[in-house]
């Protein structure tokens, strides 16, 4: 479904991603963990083309994009629609209601007619448990509710893969559960997902594969039980010790 070959990205002299090879099969959930600054966000942003790698290849759903050559804006946009991005800080559109936030992609980008988009947006919001909140503005929602609108908004464009960048790390602890629950539902439905998170319980329950990154490289990957219980690499052990403290 989604794969990358030798993705490399640098900011100025700072190499942030080095030859990342990633493979996510359809319907699978991959969780990415790693220390701060290891390049997890950058990797997701590359998959969504919010950043452009200097070299490498990404393919999603049989469409490939090669960063060796110059890409047109149109190519970038059409490729971007294949993935739905959920941001750490939600980034909802504050001047739109929850429903308008979710409708925006379908109406403005995909030119779906309004009535239909509205119906579908309401369904999505119902699905994330916000049926009652469709007509309120983001500022009237809790962080957890805002993030669920963020998820619905990303799903509204029918992406082939959902990308989550620490979706719960800006939330108060008591609000984390409701967001993870929505994500679990998506996983159960067979959505392909790449999730950067430090919620180990979630990773253990939901992930098909966990990837540990450090200094822009994938250090180790494996099924959650293996990686968490029997890490092979020294760096993985160190990191797991740190977060389990």
């Amino acid at each position, binding site marked *: 479904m989604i794969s990358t070959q030798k993705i490399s990205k640098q900011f100025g002299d700072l190499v942030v991603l080095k030859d990342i090879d990633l493979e996510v099969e359809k319907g699978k959930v991959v969780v990415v963990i790693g220390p701060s600054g290891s390049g997890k966000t950058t990797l997701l942003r590359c998959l*969504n083309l*919010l950043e452009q790698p200097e070299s490498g290849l990404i393919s999603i759903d049989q469409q490939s994009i090669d960063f060796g050559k110059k890409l047109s*804006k149109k190519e970038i*946009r059409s490729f*971007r*629609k294949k993935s*739905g*991005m959920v*941001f750490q*800080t939600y*980034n*909802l*559109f*504050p*001047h*739109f209601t929850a429903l308008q936030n979710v409708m*925006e*992609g379908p109406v*403005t*980008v*995909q030119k779906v007619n309004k009535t239909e988009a509205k119906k579908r947006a309401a369904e999505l919001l119902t699905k994330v448990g916000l049926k009652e909140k469709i007509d309120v*503005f*983001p*500022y009237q929602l809790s962080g957890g509710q805002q993030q669920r609108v963020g998820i619905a*908004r*990303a799903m*509204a*464009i029918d992406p082939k893969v959902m990308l989550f960048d620490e979706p719960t790390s800006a939330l108060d602890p008591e609000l984390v559960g409701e967001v993870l629950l929505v994500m679990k539902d998506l996983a159960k439905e067979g959505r392909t997902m790449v999730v950067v998170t430090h919620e180990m319980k979630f990773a253990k329950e939901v992930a098909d594969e966990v990837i540990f990154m450090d200094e822009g490289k994938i250090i180790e990957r494996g099924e959650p039980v293996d990686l968490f219980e029997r890490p092979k690499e020294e760096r993985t052990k160190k990191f797991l010790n740190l977060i389990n403290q």
Partner: protein
Amino acid sequence: MKMYLSSSFFSSENIAILQDSFIPLLKGVLSYTIPLTLISFVIGLFIAVVTAVFRISGIKILAGIARVYVSIIRGTPLLVQLFIVFFGLGNLGVDFLKFEPFTGTIIAFSLNTGAYASEIIRASILSIEKGQWEASSSIGMSYFQSLKRVILPQATRVSIPPLSNSFIGLVKETSLASTILVSEMFRKAQEIVATTYTPLLVYVEAAAIYWVICFILSLIQDRIETRLNRYVKT
């Protein structure tokens, strides 16, 4: 002395002058001051948005043009700009560049408003979080779709207070058009004074009318702000 002043100021003769001059002044307001302000502001705002987008576009030549334009307008007095457009261009002998006083004023004022307002709009656009651009890109929007649907609506909210300032400033600056014989309110006041010889009286009356217009405008500004603030926490 004071008594004398106030009693003479509100003498029946003076009150008659005030009354007689009110209608001509009001005519000046309705047929010139307000149209000049509105038309110049609308055109100016359009120029301003284009200029602001040029500046932030990252396209060197467009940003350069915008920068030079803003610099020239901000670096020279409005009155001088007005004279250049009206007398200067008019004197070139090219029919196309000979403007009626009204048109000339609108050209000068639009260009002036455009430059100042572009800085306001540019700052407002830049004040919108980067995450908004990213969120709109991530759902597949193009640069212009993001700008139109997500960034400008939010930037509008931020820019209303400073733009209202510009608008109110413009109302008062239309008095400069009197120098090229546009019969706006201040020109009317000057004409009245030339026959009545009561400068204090008539100019204070004109000032009062400017103030009332600006007061009403600030009320409208409040309403717009309230409306645009409906989606932010107060």
